[in-house]
């Protein structure tokens, strides 16, 4: 019964989306008459129906209703409840349903809250949003019905892959999805504005919270994904420019550029066409990323988890949405004026450099990721990896980072470069200090050196906008910017340190022997078998002491799962002053020895700490914007009410 209700709600939501699209399109064309009044309510109800449908799926998974095909193939009655619920979106159908649900809710929210945009642009935006949703509804209802029944019901669920029961895995994909959906809202705004050609500060202010929100989730998703790969894969790597990693990075790069150009548009009414273009590009990148991951077109490793047919479906949606938006752009962008002018030395000028450089990095990453496909068309397989991406993205990152030191200090429209003399000298001194520190500490590697020096300069420059301000009265938005930029410096420092100062030790030791890794002394005291709910493991009993201080226990495991049979290594991590001792237990070697892999990675946690700071900065900025909008909304309502009073 619940499954049927869920399916019915999904069909109703889809028909409301169709209505929303139709009414919106007619109204925008000026033929709708009373139809315009239908658009907003349709958007709200559509969101609620989608939510109902998703709630039904959650309920089915929570109860492990094995008469539903999706539950039977992806769950198991013995799973802990949290993983049963997470199982609802841990598969293709459920994740698509989550996508339309969040998208529907976002559309409903826009319809309910936003009164800033000109009504016609608003209707066009909601129609665009309905158009995008309709594609996903069609996808769900036609080829991936999450509520399909299984007759007869299964006796037990199939999915009990223990490794997929990881709390990180349960919440990593929805985090990225929230980011993607946020960008889809930004996309709808861009398309709406392209249709009515009304691009201005109001449009930017309506779009900004969605871009900020999406960007926060993308930042968190990438940060968490990177940390998780770092500790799970057992080799201490945190980023490898793998196609799937790039697929998550590209929307982030586009969203970062969009975030900055949208604030230029909001405050200064400049960069109109460019912002609209970025709105389209950012969502394209999320769709392209999803397509690359789902279709398995790039790495054969992914060929197991994917279905080329579904990949093709996503590609069709991608072609319709993005192709359509770009045609609209080609037709209408010429009549959108450029907006206000500004001088080279101005906040806008700096932000243009930021935007152009980010776009260039995006271009390089996209090109490098897709290039193996190009050569395969000529029957040659090539690999494009870190030795390509690192230096090539650095070419564009370095000038961007240099401009970033000065940008936040500049005034809008026009500024005098001479005014920045002192702050820039301080930043230069910080860079020199960083250079000296790097050389004294014996760091190696050109890119690491550049990164470290830039991090020094950025750290000093990023807090300078606070100089001369009353810290209590400093607007949250400024705090957000400072924290996020400081986060960039922190992450950059972490990356540089990881690359320059990591110490690796691969050894085979007997029980009782000790190993020195950098400042650490690690003793292997024993190896014992331990058992978990669905695995057995060999666990190394080790102690570690930092420069002969008190010892800490380190217990890496080599786990064997029996259903399905597979081996994993569980690294043990000891964090000390932002650095981490990373220990992995390998196989038994001859002569009663054990293989150990040990790393000392000074300051490595700064990478993810920086990522968190960047997201926190976004959150502060978002809070300030939302608070501002709400205050204004209340004020406006009060004015309206007062007017009504006097009218009476």
């Amino acid at each position, binding site marked *: 019964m619940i499954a049927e209700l869920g399916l019915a709600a999904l069909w109703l939501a889809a028909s409301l989306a169709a209505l929303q699209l139709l009414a919106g399109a007619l109204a925008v064309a000026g033929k709708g008459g009373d139809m315009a009044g239908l658009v907003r309510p349709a958007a709200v109800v559509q969101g609620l129906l989608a939510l109902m449908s998703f709630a039904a799926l959650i309920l089915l998974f929570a109860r492990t209703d094995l008469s539903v095909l999706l539950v039977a193939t992806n769950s198991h009655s013995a799973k802990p409840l949290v993983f049963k619920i997470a199982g609802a979106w841990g598969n293709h159908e459920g994740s698509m349903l989550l996508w339309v649900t969040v998208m529907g809710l976002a559309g409903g929210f826009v319809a309910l809250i936003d009164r800033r945009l000109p009504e016609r642009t608003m209707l066009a935006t909601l129609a665009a949003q309905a158009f995008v949703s309709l594609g996903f509804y069609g996808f769900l209802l036609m080829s991936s019905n999450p509520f399909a029944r299984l007759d007869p019901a299964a006796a037990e669920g199939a999915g009990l892959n223990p490794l997929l029961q990881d709390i990180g895995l349960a919440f990593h994909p929805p985090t990225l999805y929230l980011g993607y959906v946020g960008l889809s809202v930004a996309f709808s705004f861009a398309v709406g504005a392209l249709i009515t050609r009304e691009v201005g500060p109001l449009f930017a202010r309506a779009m900004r919270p969605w871009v900020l929100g999406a960007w926060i989730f993308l930042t968190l998703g990438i940060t968490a994904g990177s940390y*998780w790969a770092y500790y799970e894969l057992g080799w201490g790597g945190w980023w490898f420019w793998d196609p799937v990693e790039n697929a998550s990075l590209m929307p982030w790069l586009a969203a970062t550029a969009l975030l900055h150009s949208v604030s230029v548009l909001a405050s200064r009414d400049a960069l109109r066409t460019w912002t609209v273009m970025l709105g389209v590009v950012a969502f394209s990148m999320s769709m392209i990323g999803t397509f690359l991951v789902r279709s398995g077109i790039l790495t054969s490793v992914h060929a197991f988890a994917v279905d080329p047919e579904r990949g093709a479906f996503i590609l069709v949606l991608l072609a319709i949405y993005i192709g359509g938006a770009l045609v609209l752009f080609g037709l209408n962008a010429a009549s959108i004026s450029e907006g206000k*002018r500004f001088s080279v030395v101005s906040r806008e000028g700096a932000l243009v450099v930021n935007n152009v450089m980010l776009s260039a990095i995006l271009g390089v990453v996209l*090109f490098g990721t897709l290039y193996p496909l190009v050569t395969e068309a000529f029957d040659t397989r090539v690999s494009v990896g870190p030795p390509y991406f690192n230096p090539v993205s650095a070419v564009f990152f370095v000038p961007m980072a240099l401009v970033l030191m000065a940008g936040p200090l500049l005034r809008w429209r026009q500024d005098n470069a001479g005014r920045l003399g002192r702050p820039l000298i301080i930043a230069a001194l910080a860079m020199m200090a960083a250079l000296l520190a790097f050389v004294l500490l014996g760091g190696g590697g050109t890119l690491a050196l550049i990164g470290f020096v830039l991090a020094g300069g950025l750290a000093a420059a990023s807090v300078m906008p606070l100089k001369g301000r009353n810290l209590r009265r400093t607007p949250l938005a400024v705090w957000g910017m400072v924290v996020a930029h400081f986060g960039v410096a922190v992450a950059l420092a972490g990356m540089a340190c990881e690359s320059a100062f990591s110490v690796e*030790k691969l050894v085979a030791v007997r029980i009782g022997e000790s190993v020195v890794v950098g400042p650490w002394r690690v003793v292997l005291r024993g190896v014992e078998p331990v058992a978990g709910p669905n695995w057995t493991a060999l666990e190394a009993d080790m102690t570690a002491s930092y420069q002969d201080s008190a010892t800490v226990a380190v217990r890496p495991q080599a786990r064997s799962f029996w259903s399905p049979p597979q081996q994993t290594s569980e690294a043990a991590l000891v964090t000390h002053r932002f650095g981490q001792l990373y220990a992995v237990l390998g196989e038994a070697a001859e002569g009663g020895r054990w293989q150990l892999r040990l790393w000392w990675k000074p300051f490595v946690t700064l990478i993810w700490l920086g990522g968190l700071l960047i997201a926190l900065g976004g959150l502060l900025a978002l809070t300030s914007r939302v608070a501002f909008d709400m205050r204004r909304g209340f004020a406006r309502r009060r004015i309206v009410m007062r007017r009504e009073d006097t009218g009476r």
Partner: protein
Amino acid sequence: MRLLACLLALWFAAPAAAQDSMPPAPWAYRQLDDPAQEARAQALMETLRCLKCQSQSIADSDAPMAGDMRSQVRQRIAAGEDPEAIRSWLIERYGDYVSYTPRLTSLTWPLFAMPLVLLALVMLLLRRRLRKGDSA
């Protein structure tokens, strides 16, 4: 998400690819005594592709074949061979696929031209945007 893919791959591949019972190759999990040589070997290994896992370098893979490749790389470096000669030797056998560092060939030149084109485009765009603004 790369991890997810690896896990799924492992999961599905498990029945087909049983593991051998041989100990790892001598230098698969052992560093060279000379730190300079080890650093050279490590730098090379990080840019060679594990042929079994398809999405990892041999420097961070537990696949036995990756271990055998590491062992061979370390032995050759210890024998004084140049890292780039080892890379060429592998490319001669497996094609460009085995190396994460693309070579400049008739098929890969766009990879190197692209950043230059972008750089030129960036310069052009910035000059146009900013100079125009200036004159206003």
